[in-house]
């Protein structure tokens, strides 16, 4: 889509929120470009379904717009706050989905069909996403943050509101479970007997 570039890229998130609350329209655009994809990515990793991820991310961004006039500068990081909002919304949605159908959330849908030469990469990505969806939510969250988002453990601890030791433990258990899940799918992933 055509949207103005984030020309406020050097401005801190909380300052942008203040500008937004004061009626600065360029701040609204900058915050959207900066935070919405992040919220969407996180929601997609947690939910595995594009439409659900978009709903959650839009809901989370609505909360950003609402809280902007009351945001206290320097008290919390906007990205950390947003992360918790998205995580909570995802947890609620997963809980509701489990109440209605156990299978409804376990089959990720590829949001954008890939070109033929990217099929294997996408198959691996989908397989990983599918395997991630079989993990308990906390393990999935920790594994995604550590190994896909590549955040350091102290930052993950802050986001998940647990200790660094707990992060290490949850991540480790998540990886072990992931390995077990993926063991039976090696051929589908192109790790066995595939063409170059």
């Amino acid at each position: 889509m055509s949207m103005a570039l984030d020309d406020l890229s050097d401005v801190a998130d909380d300052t942008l929120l203040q500008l937004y609350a004061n009626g600065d329209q360029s701040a609204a655009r900058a915050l959207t470009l900066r935070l919405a994809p992040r919220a969407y990515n996180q929601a997609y990793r947690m939910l595995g379904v594009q439409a659900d991820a978009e709903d959650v991310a839009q809901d989370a961004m609505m909360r950003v717009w609402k809280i902007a006039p009351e945001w206290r500068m320097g008290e919390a990081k906007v990205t950390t706050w947003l992360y918790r909002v998205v995580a909570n919304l995802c947890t609620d949605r997963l809980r509701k989905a489990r109440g209605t159908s156990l299978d409804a959330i376990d089959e990720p849908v590829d949001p954008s069909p890939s070109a033929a030469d990217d099929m294997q990469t996408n198959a691996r990505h989908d397989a990983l996403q599918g395997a991630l969806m079989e993990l308990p939510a906390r393990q999935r969250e920790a594994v995604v943050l550590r190994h896909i988002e590549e955040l350091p453990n102290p930052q993950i601890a802050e986001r998940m509101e647990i200790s660094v030791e707990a992060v290490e433990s949850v991540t480790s258990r998540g990886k072990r479970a992931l390995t077990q899940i993926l063991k039976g799918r090696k051929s589908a992933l192109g790790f066995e007997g595939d063409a170059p």
Partner: protein
Amino acid sequence: MSKNMSDKDDLAMLFEAAKNASPEPSSDFMARVLDDAQVMQPAALGVMHTEMPKQNAFKDFFMGLSDAIGGWPAFAGLATAAVTGLWIGVSPPAGLIEPFGTVLGSDTSALSDALEYGEGFDFTLFEG
């Protein structure tokens, strides 16, 4: 891909693929979020900006006056002057009346006429 590759390496490869294939949000989604931002932004600000001056008009008047005359010490001086003036009016010292007497003649009744109050007038008449 090698059959001998360890599970750990397989997983690392999958993570790498996932990093490179980060899902991009659709343009429709981005447009919806921006619409929300724009709709919510003026609504909150419009109310604040129109109502705040009304709520503070009285306070603003005194703050402006205070700034104009030099702050609270000036208010103290103004109050003292007002009380002193009132007291002089109620009970004028004899020395103050004399110059009027000089101007108007020796008959102080002329002062009474000039100030339009009759003989025997006393402000104590107002008391009870």
